[in-house]
């Protein structure tokens, strides 16, 4: 289980049981539903933006520990950030979980998900909340 422990760091298991920002936001201007066809899980992201800054953000849905941890970390990190900063966070995270490469600006919270790139089927779990959020922030949500 050595390898697996890299994927499922303690904090991931914790988040899966006590996810952060796991709630709805009433009348959120930005709401987006994302679905992982590989497993049938889904996530809904709620967000409010003011002056290009993410004011509030939350998520709901069903998913595995990886996806819940990813959504928890994501919502925690992007709250209060500018849309530009969110975009570059997304780019960095995307790169991290597909290649394992980090960059200096990256929050150490994201690094706990670095092990995912070794598990191709689970990459989708980690990226799903991010994709859904990006779509929601840009109002490009295909599912709405």
């Amino acid at each position: 289980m050595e390898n697996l422990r890299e994927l499922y760091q303690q904090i991931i298991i914790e988040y899966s049981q006590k996810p952060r920002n796991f709630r709805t936001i009433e009348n959120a201007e930005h709401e987006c539903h994302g679905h992982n066809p590989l497993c049938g899980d889904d996530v809904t992201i709620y967000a409010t933006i003011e002056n290009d800054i993410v004011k509030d953000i939350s998520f709901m849905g069903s998913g595995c520990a990886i996806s819940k941890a990813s959504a928890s970390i994501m919502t925690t990190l992007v709250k209060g950030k500018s849309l530009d900063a969110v975009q570059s966070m997304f780019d960095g995270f995307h790169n991290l979980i597909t290649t394992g490469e980090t960059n200096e600006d990256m929050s150490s919270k994201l690094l706990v998900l670095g092990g995912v790139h070794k598990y191709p089927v689970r990459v989708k779990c980690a990226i799903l909340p991010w994709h859904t959020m990006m779509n929601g922030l840009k109002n490009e949500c295909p599912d709405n």
Partner: protein
Amino acid sequence: MTFDVDKIRNDFPVLFQSSRGKPLIYLDNAATTQRPKSVIKAVSSFYENDNANIHRSVYELGERATIKYEDARVKVQKFINAEKSASIIFTKGTTESINLVAYAYGRTFLKPGDEILYSEMEHHSNIVPWQQVAETTGCQLKYIPITDDGTLVEDWRNYFSEKTKFVAITHQSNVLGSINPVKDIITYAHDKGAKILIDAAQSVPHMSVDVQNLGCDFLVFSGHKMLAPTGVGVLYGKTDILNAMPPFLFGGDMISQVGLQSSKWNDLPHKFEAGTPNIAQVIGLGAAIDYINELGIDSIHQYEHELTQYALSKFEELDTIKVFGTRENRGAILSFHSEFVHPHDMAQFLDADGIAVRAGHHCAQPLMERLRVPATTRASLYFYNTREEIDILVNSIKNILKIFSVESQPK
């Protein structure tokens, strides 16, 4: 015959490997089974000795290939006790077999107002083709629900109506393992004037299936779920119905005469086998049937039944795990669920112990909705699995539960 599993396992080279540093325990047999040496050999040996295109060849190699291919058809015929070998159509799998019937029977003979009846526990392959038939022909889709314990409702007859013209139902659920009373359903469907297709993808590999005794109009299954190569499946159909149907795929071998503007069809079974067939795979399926016959399908069934009952008992040790389905009338499939561990996490942790199980909706999303879970973890057995493997599985689950619920209490 006593069932010497250790000896049997020796026939399956793939089982002797380690996965993630542990001895591999392969419990994903409902997805695909492993292949014995004899099947692997039948395929290689065809390529090494007899490889040629079939039918119409006047040379020795081609004759030999044709004989082997047609011999395999007869093996399948006998295995499911079909009356004629012309009833056996080779396809690339269950999915293609069902699509063939949906296109060539469904779209031809079903009319607006007709009803197609299936069940809530069908595999996507036995749902989506019928949705398309409904969409193109204007007929309606109805389904027989299941009970909370995962069996077909007892009053399934009530879901038939005068309009029911086609029934498509699985013999054994690929998620629950539930075995449906298909013989009764077939009889009742015929009483009501409906044709009926049995999805036997999960039954033919594990129990004796006799199409004449059942009386079904169509029966479909896949080679890869019964020791055979990938890329081969079977459609059994009654010859009078197959004869009345237009062909599905068009091309070489399925025609008897082609003009630049129109063509005449060949006889059964060729009418439904357009193009160069999956020759080596069909021959491999023949070898798989030989292997199964050697063990005896009834012995296989008995062994699997005992192993399943053992597994069900062992799972009872796991308080927080729910196993779907009943104890009786079930095949060797165990889908389970934990409130605390998501099915994919469960499967990922089992993988770390070298245990191959499947997590997901198992191509049965409507059933998942009915069970009110997004997914399950599924362990599915075949005759080469052992009680020791079940013990390791259950132990591993115990550890995983600990990791998720004990170790990780919020600090």
